[in-house]
Structure formats: structure tokens, C-alpha cells
């Protein structure tokens, strides 16, 4: 008796799944007709994948599967690159997960994933054997203060920025803007974005308490909807007029100014591997550093090519000319 009921319950689910699968298959078929038999090919590291790449990036080892984890801020970028890569190399399967930089670093050092993405140096995190990990600085991201357009200011000196974030200045009129109270939008303590902004935007001063959100889209939404709000965002999120990107000490927040080292608030996007990268992981990382991504996808998504940087920075934050 019980069984029949369970069965009928299961049958309903199977039915639904069946319908879905049927709809899916008719569509999926034509799009990925040649991407279905990678299991057979996985072991023999076949060289027969399309030799379309001029950079030689995906000429070998472009089959098999790897898993990437880490920084949720980097996930869309890497996933987009993986999407492109996979469409060029149908034999390869790249899984891009997110979970945060800490998770990514932990997982890559434990060997659970092949590549761990992080928006901070591994050296800055406790409990990570940074010497075992190999750093690949795949991109640079610039950040700046984002304010609600209603405050009437789009340029701020670093001193004033510190005063705003430490709570010394509480109204925009003190800086010559509109008469609205300042609302701070922070990131959580452990966030890489916050670390970068605090280190290079506030010279290490601790921000006062304010609304705290982790996700860039949420921060953007809050800043755009709350009068007098100020937060910080990566350049890639300044896509419309809903928030104003602040110039700092008169330096415009542009890719060029970050590249030549004039704009101070930026960070590397790291992809870590345990030991030197091998196989598909290496091929994919090479692909990330190739011109196709560095001058194509990266700028499209609002990131800055790390190959174009004229300055570089070490884990301690010391900036030197390249």
C-alpha cells in the first residue's frame, strides 16, 4: 500500500522531469551536437581539439575537466572566459564555482579544486600555505567610492574620503555638496574589496559602522536608492547613471589611470594553483592571459588587463614601476 503511494509520488516527479528533459533535449541537441562524448576522450589527452587558436593557448590538453572555485566577485568573469573557452574547445569541461576567496584558497590548497580564485594575496589570509601556491594575476580591478548622484559631488580628496568613512564628516554640505546626511555602505571585514579600499583608499583607517553588504549588485542598489549614501564598487559596476563614481584627489577613476599607477585603489584578481599549473588548468590559465581575453573580454566586463599594467604591487602593498 505504502509503496504504491510512494511510487505514484515518484512517478509524478519522473513525469515532470521527463517532460523537462524532452523539451531540453530537442533544443540542446543542435547547439552542442559535438560536445557529448568527452568521457571517452578524457584519458587520451587527445590533440584533436580544434586548432583554431593562434596564441597556441589551447593547442594541447584542451580536454578533460577541471573545477575552479573561489571569489564570488571573480566568478562571472572566469565563468564567461570558461564559456568562451569551452565553445572553442568542446572537449574541455570547466566548472566555475564561487564561495568566496577564503573558500577558494582553502580548497585549492587542500587539492579539492584545480584553481582557486582570490581577490587578495594568499599571504594575507591566515592558515593558507602561501608558499605552496602559485599565483596567476589574471586581471586587475579598479575600485572607487560610489555615491548617490543626489549628493552633488564627484571629486573628493583622500583626506576627506577618510573623514567621510571614519565618521568625522556626517553631512555632504561640509564638503560643498547638498545638505544630506551621509550613509555609509560597507563590506564585511573579511571581504577582499573592503581590504583593498581600506588599504589604498583610506590608508588603513578603520571605517565607521554602516550598512554592510557583501554583494556588489546589492551595494550598488542601496547606494542608488538611499539619499546621501556612499559605498565602494569595482569599476565594472559603474555601467549607468544610478551611482556616481568619485574621482580621488582629482584623478579620474579610469582604466588608464590605474594602469599608469596614478589612481591608487586597485587590486589583482588572483588565480592560484597548487604547485605549477598542469594540463587543462595550465591551458586555461594561459588562455586567460592571452590577448583574446586580456584585451577582449576583460575590458568588456570592466576589468583591466594585468598585462597592460605599468606598475606592480607585492603582497605587502608596495607599489613599484614595472
Amino acid at each position, binding site marked *: 500500500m505504502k509503496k504504491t503511494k510512494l511510487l505514484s509520488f515518484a512517478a509524478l516527479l519522473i513525469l515532470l522531469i521527463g517532460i523537462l528533459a524532452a523539451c531540453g533535449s530537442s533544443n540542446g541537441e543542435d547547439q552542442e551536437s559535438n560536445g557529448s562524448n568527452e568521457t571517452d576522450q578524457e584519458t587520451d589527452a587527445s590533440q584533436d581539439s580544434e586548432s583554431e587558436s593562434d596564441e597556441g593557448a589551447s593547442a594541447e590538453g584542451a580536454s578533460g575537466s577541471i573545477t575552479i572555485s573561489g571569489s564570488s566577485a571573480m566568478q562571472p568573469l572566469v565563468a564567461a572566459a570558461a564559456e568562451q573557452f569551452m565553445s572553442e574547445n568542446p572537449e574541455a569541461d570547466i566548472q566555475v564555482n564561487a564561495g*568566496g576567496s577564503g573558500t577558494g584558497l582553502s580548497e585549492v590548497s587542500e587539492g579539492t579544486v584545480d584553481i582557486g580564485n582570490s581577490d587578495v594575496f594568499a599571504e594575507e589570509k591566515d592558515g593558507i600555505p602561501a608558499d605552496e601556491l602559485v599565483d596567476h594575476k589574471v586581471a586587475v580591478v579598479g575600485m572607487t567610492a560610489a555615491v548617490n548622484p543626489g549628493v552633488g559631488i564627484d571629486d573628493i580628496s583622500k583626506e576627506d574620503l577618510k573623514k567621510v568613512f571614519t565618521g568625522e564628516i556626517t553631512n555632504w554640505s561640509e564638503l560643498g555638496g547638498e545638505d544630506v546626511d551621509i550613509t555609509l555602505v560597507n563590506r564585511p571585514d*573579511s571581504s577582499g574589496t573592503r581590504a583593498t579600499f581600506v588599504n589604498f583608499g583610506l590608508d588603513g583607517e578603520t571605517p565607521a559602522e554602516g550598512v554592510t553588504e557583501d554583494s556588489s549588485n546589492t551595494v550598488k542598489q542601496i547606494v542608488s536608492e538611499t539619499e546621501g549614501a556612499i559605498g565602494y564598487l569595482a569599476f565594472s559596476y559603474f555601467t549607468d547613471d544610478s551611482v556616481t563614481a568619485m574621482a580621488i584627489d582629482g584623478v579620474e577613476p579610469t582604466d588608464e589611470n590605474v594602469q599608469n599607477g596614478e589612481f591608487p585603489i586597485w587590486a589583482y584578481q588572483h588565480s592560484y594553483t597548487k604547485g605549477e599549473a598542469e594540463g587543462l588548468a595550465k591551458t586555461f590559465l594561459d588562455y586567460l592571459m592571452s590577448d583574446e581575453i586580456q584585451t577582449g573580454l576583460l575590458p568588456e566586463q570592466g576589468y583591466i588587463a594585468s598585462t597592460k599594467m605599468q606598475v606592480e604591487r607585492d603582497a605587502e602593498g608596495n607599489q613599484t614601476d614595472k
Partner: protein
Amino acid sequence: MENKAALSAGERLIKSKQNRSLGELRGKILVTLCALIMITATVAVTIFLTVKGLQSFLVNHVSPIEFLTSTNWNPLADQPSYGALPFIFGSLAVTFLSALIAAPLGIGGAIFMTEIAPSWGRKVLQPVIELLVGIPSVVYGFIGLTVLVPFIREHGAGTGFSILAGTIVLSIMILPTITTIATDAMGALPNSLREGSLALGATRWQTIRKVLLPAALPSLLTAVVLGMARAFGEALAVQMVIGNVRNLPESLLDPSATLTTIITLNMGHTTYGSVENNTLWSMGLILLIISFVFILIVRYLSSRRKI
């Protein structure tokens, strides 16, 4: 129903005695096994959480007293301080406040379904309740962020991110839990109770208040506690509307933070085994302990009622 039971009973009688006792044994083993699996799962999670949660105190030597009583949370400072009191307070505040709103609504809805309009009330409300469960917490969070927070900002004070916003979102989220369990509890009451009371000339309200509610109280309390447990553990929706501020709130309109929101915000960014990560697990342990305290309280209440 009766008819069928008698029929199948007749069939069963024909079967041999041996078969029956074997089936009996098998059934008992199967069912006990399931109970054991549940115990194992709970014990595994508990031990795991306890071991992980105690690490910050035992390995990293964070003072448990500071952790529980200090209001200063600053794990990244040169002199790191780990005071989780504001978060514990925030968690308890939103949980109790949302239960305060959702419990009357949920139990009221249950009474409406079982006592006031058993025929059509249930047909309308039951699907409504079930559909409320189906709305994902992320969506609740975004509706809270786009509708509720601006509303509070315009009609109240401050930024709109507040305990109040968190409470409202949570109340709606735990409403289905409370209503469903409460409805089951009320529905499970024997009809003789109602009929007896009504026969004595009591009005419907008197019957509900004096007879049904006391009789169902232990189950109703369980409903509220399970609702509170859900509120207590909810993370994504609350995180979007409560503001996640480390200070102790002074009013309903102040932003605050809960244990879960701090865990979600920081868990991904910290690495396993670091002090920060361990303190987050300690918060998870506190969540577990506090919910266990809830359960003990209800146990105590319900055992008193039954006597």
C-alpha cells in the same frame, strides 16, 4: 474507511501466523533503523558543530566570556576583539519579534481553517500557505530590499535597514511553518471536545478559548518554536534588509546584525582554520545551543500542561 479496514483485515486473517510475525519484526526493524539514522545525523552534526565551534576557544584561545559578553567585534584589528553579543542580541530580537507577529497570525489562521470555516476556509488558506513556503528566501530578501526598506526609510527614520524590516520579512517567512503545524494540531483535536463544549451552551469563541486552545497548547507551542527556529536560522533574506551593523541597536529602526548574517557575510571570505573562520563556527554553535534552549523551554511548558 471502516469498510476497507475490515476487508483487508479479512484478507490478513487468512495469512499464516508465521508470515505475520516475520512481517511484524521486519517492520519494526525498518522503522527503528530510520529512527537510528535520524539520531546518527543529529549526533554527527552536533558533534561536528561542537568540535568546530569550540576550536576558537581551545586552539585560538579566544576568551569565551569576551565572546559572549563583549559588544566589540573587530577580528581584523591589531588587537583583535571577538565580542559576538550584538549578533546574539540581534538574532534573539528578530526571532522573538517575528514570532510575536507571526504566532497570532498563524494560530489565528489555523483556527479560521479548523473552527470558523472548516469547509471553504481550508480550501482557500491551505494552498495559500503552501505557496508562501515555495517563495525562495532570496526573493523575500529582494522584495524586502526594493519595497520594504524604502517604505520604512520614507515613513520612519534612518536608512530603512532595520530590525523592523528584518522582523517583517521573517514574520512572513515563518508564517507558513506556524500555520501548518498549528492547523494540524487543531485538526487533530477530537471532535468530542468541541461538541461537549458547544452542548454545554458555550459559544464558539468560548469553546476555542477555554477548551480547544488549552488542549492544543503543547502542539501550538511546538509550531511557534519551529517557526522561531526557522527565523533564527534564516540568513539570506535577513541579510539583505537588516543592515548588518556591529553595534547594539537602540531602537526598532536601528540597523543590526544577526549571527546568521555575520556567518554568511564572512564565511566565504575566510579560510578554514583561521581564527575568524573558527569564531564563525562558534557562532554556529551558539545558534545550535540557543535553539536547543528553545526546545527545552517548550518541553518544560508542554510537560506542565499535560499534567
